[in-house]
């Protein structure tokens, strides 16, 4: 069963990446703290007016996730490069997509864990009163994160191996993420404002389409990009 073996390889990479992270925790602490810090700064910038804060909550939350999460992706390859481990990883007799799938899943778990800290902080700081359904809100969060992490993992595979990687990754990634930011922020804000689901419905469809298109495209393109 080749597919079962490939999935075993994917699991091995996820486990490896998460274990490295769990043992140091340096990356997670820094990223989660930066997310909270950005939320706090947005609070200061937007003023203490509770109504203004509440209206901006979804947008500020998503920007905090994007700006802090983007730091995680380069790191995921940087650790490999520092240990000269990327080439041995490529030498294993396995299809390249398993590396991308493993890194993608590990980064997704990482970002979701960061969100588990950042989202409650946003709800408290921005004085969000009620959320219309926790399940749809979580779904939007997950869909937005998949698009973000998929493209982020893909672009980081290049940016981390170039000069000026800290600048290059956001420069490449953020223009691509405009649909994700719009859809996630709008859907979240419809849910946070207690609007019924139909307002968010169109945005959820857009998020699903974006996720499918770009995760599939990244899977295919990764083969070409990691080779050189």
């Amino acid at each position, binding site marked *: 069963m080749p597919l079962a073996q490939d999935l075993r390889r994917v699991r091995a990479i996820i486990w490896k990446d998460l274990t490295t992270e769990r043992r140091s925790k340096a990356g997670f602490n820094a990223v989660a703290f930066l997310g909270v810090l950005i939320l706090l700064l947005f609070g200061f910038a937007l003023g203490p007016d509770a109504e203004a804060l509440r209206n901006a909550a979804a947008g500020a939350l998503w920007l905090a996730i994007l700006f802090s999460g983007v730091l995680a992706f380069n790191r995921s390859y940087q650790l490999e490069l520092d240990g000269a481990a990327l080439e041995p990883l490529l030498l294993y007799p396995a299809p390249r997509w398993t590396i991308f799938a493993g890194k993608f899943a590990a980064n997704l778990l990482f970002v979701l864990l960061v969100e588990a800290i950042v989202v409650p902080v946003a709800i408290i700081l921005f004085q969000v009163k009620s959320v219309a359904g926790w399940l749809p809100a979580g779904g939007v969060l997950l869909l937005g994160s998949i698009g973000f992490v998929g493209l982020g993992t893909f672009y980081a595979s290049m940016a981390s191996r170039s000069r000026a990687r800290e600048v290059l990754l956001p420069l490449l990634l953020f*223009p691509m993420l405009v649909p994700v930011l719009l859809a996630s922020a709008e859907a979240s804000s419809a849910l946070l404002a207690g609007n019924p689901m139909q307002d968010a419905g*169109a945005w959820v469809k857009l998020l699903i389409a974006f996720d499918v298109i770009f995760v599939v495209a990244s899977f295919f393109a990764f083969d*070409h990009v990691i*080779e*050189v």
Partner: protein
Amino acid sequence: MSHAVPLERDRASLPATNGRWLDWFGVIAVVALIASQVNGVLTSPPDRDMGHLQKIMYVHVPSAWNAFIAFFVVAIASLLYLWKGQEKHDLLAASAAEVGTLFTGLTLALGSIWGRPTWGVWWTWDPRLTSTAVLFLTFVGYLALRSFVDDSERRAQWSAAVGLLGALNVPIVYMSVKWWRTLHQMQSNPSTVDPEYVIGLRTNGIAVLLLLIYFIMKRYRAARMERLAEHLVERAALEGP
């Protein structure tokens, strides 16, 4: 990385007459542009609402059209590179991306100059305007990637992937911005063009297209020569004194 590029074939594909023909083509493009601009400005009556501001249309709209053509070339050339792995497709994509970014910047600047007296603002979050700005930034990222990667094979592979994904994103960005605006308020939309202006618009569109081809070819030729020089230096270094 090895550059196993056959040098003789490279030199053969860069004939000496190529440059002179290209320069003549450039002269034709510039003359065509001047002629159609003069024609457009002289023959079209002032617009009822905008007056002579309407003349900006003759530069703004053709550069927008041609920017899209340039990015289409980038997408096709990137696809060809990923498929065949020939350096010329990479260089063509890079040349088209540079010129396309230039024309997109021009479109945005001219749109802003036109928007100030017409809409009363320098910038509005109109779907077309906003997605053009996102397109501009996407390809600024593409050019930044090219300049930050030294190895030519790597640069070619990576920028082909980035160029394709960027082009793929254009319709999605446009759709999402459109929904975003319509859910909030109606977008303002310039009215349809009067027949009096159509001919001026078309001739200018073609003139700018000639200019676009000239720019891309000129840039492409320069890129080929740069690569050839690099190959020659490399070969000289390998052969030794």
